[in-house]
């Protein structure tokens, strides 16, 4: 980048922390220069221990907003939890725009504390959720927090929630490559993350941001399980013709995955019933088991399962009947 290097905070973790010309006059200059800010956070080890009972951790990412990350996270969780022998949880780290409670039918629920920490909120016996949404008393409450406070919340979610024994922890993220993303990777660094599923829509305007997200994953050495192309075509319920509402002018996720040698896990078509299900907090698979979108999800979950269990057979889930 050709911005003047001296103009801005290098970041507390940077080698230049406290030593850059931009640091002069900053109240934290001495602290940063002493190296204290670069010392590993003890919470990382604590989280490593706490989450040792979680077998698989999947981050759902996108560079772009509004592509369907939360919808996907919620429905991936429903699909995995349709096997009643599996324990599944969703952690919503979109601090400013927590959608998971609504999408999973948990609006208005509150979090309870016990001796072993915060209890997540249960959708089913084997499906738990944690979100800042449960800590807000009104749907109008805004979380107007800068990075450090958001990071602190994420740390608490990982360290202080009584997750218990989990087969899958799915982490839903806000769009971008910033505090939340760095923090989740950092705080999970003493544990094993299976990888990231990246959501995009077909247009270049979305892919452009998604390529950045892919670079982020590469930078922080986060494996990429694969890419999902959402909102991929719309079949008119009346005349049954297909329209590409979000046209894949540069070849869509397919071309991008081919260029970057990444698996395309699947394409999910637009279906107005998906949005309706999400608004009503119901699993789309239960509402519309025959939709092409349901079939697409099923296929994606199978691909993901194969990624984690190359020698196993997918045991779930005719999840339309759960």
């Amino acid at each position, binding site marked *: 980048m050709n911005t003047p290097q001296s103009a801005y905070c290098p970041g507390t973790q940077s080698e230049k922390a406290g030593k850059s010309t931009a640091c002069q006059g900053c109240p934290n200059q001495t602290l940063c220069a002493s190296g204290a800010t670069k010392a590993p956070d003890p919470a990382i080890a604590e989280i490593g221990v706490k989450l040792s009972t979680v077998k698989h951790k999947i981050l759902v990412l996108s560079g772009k907003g509004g592509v369907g990350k939360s919808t996907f996270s919620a429905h991936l969780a429903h699909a995995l939890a349709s096997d009643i022998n599996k324990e599944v949880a969703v952690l919503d780290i979109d601090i400013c*725009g927590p959608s998971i409670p609504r999408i999973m039918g948990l609006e208005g629920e509150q979090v309870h504390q016990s001796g072993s920490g915060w209890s997540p909120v249960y959708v089913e016996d084997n499906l738990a959720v944690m979100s800042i949404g449960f800590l807000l008393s009104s749907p109008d409450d805004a979380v107007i927090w800068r990075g450090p406070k958001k990071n602190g919340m994420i740390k608490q979610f990982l360290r202080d929630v009584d997750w218990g024994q989990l087969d899958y922890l799915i982490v839903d993220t806000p769009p971008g490559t910033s505090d939340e993303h760095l923090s989740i990777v950092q705080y999970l660094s003493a544990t094993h993350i299976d990888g990231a599923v990246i959501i995009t829509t077909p247009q270049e305007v979305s892919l452009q941001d998604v390529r950045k997200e892919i670079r982020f994953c590469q930078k922080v050495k986060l494996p990429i399980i694969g890419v999902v192309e959402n909102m991929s075509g719309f079949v008119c319920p009346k005349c049954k013709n297909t329209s590409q509402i979000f046209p894949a002018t540069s070849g869509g996720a397919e071309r991008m995955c081919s260029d970057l040698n990444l698996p395309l896990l699947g394409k999910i078509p637009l279906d107005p019933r998906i949005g309706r299900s999400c608004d009503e907090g119901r699993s789309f698979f239960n509402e519309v088991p025959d939709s092409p979108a349901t079939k697409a999800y099923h296929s994606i979950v199978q691909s993901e399962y194969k990624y984690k269990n190359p020698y196993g057979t997918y045991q779930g889930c005719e999840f339309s009947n759960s």
Partner: protein
Amino acid sequence: LAATVGILDIDLCGPSIPRMLSVGRPDVHQCDLGWVPVYTDAEKSLALMSIGFLLDDPDDAVVWRGPKKTALIGQFVSDVAWGELDVLLVDTPPGTSDEHLAVLENLKKHKVDGAILVTTPQAVSTGDVRREITFCKKTGLRILGIVENMSGFACPHCSECTNIFSKGGGEDLAKLTGSVFLGSVPLDPLLSASIEEGKDFIQSFPHSPTFSAITSISHTLLNSLQAA
């Protein structure tokens, strides 16, 4: 109305403005008054600034925490030689965090007319926009109105309208929060395709209902700005 307009893109992680306005990958130069914005044409009627212009590789991720984002946004406001503008539009990322606080703090000494809030019709979207409305109220930012985007899709084959992302949420939100409802913009593959290629949709499809919707919203806004 031939206004001179600036667009300041403060979505540092996902800067979409350069592509949408088809300005390619120009260099940003300095002059005595600061950084020179990128103009979309020789008439200089539309000036842009985005981190997209500052990246050597467009696929490079900007992996910055809050303080770094705040500092660059400060520079974008104070150190860009915008010149005489009728309107400066600030495009923001989703959320109520560093970028939003940074741009408001830096614009404090200038007059901020207000904010336009964009939602899609579904409750999952309006649910977040309610919080954005609270952000505006808490920071003293006047809400110029709410726009409902992706509001229905008319099938180009049979004209059947499907409410893919539900219906009416924008208007309901405006009523609920006492805000002005500026209007709805339909889902339009021609608009999506135009934006992809950085074409001027208004020039390419002047007879489109989408064009009328956007024009109507702009007129309402301009009237509101002039009346204030």
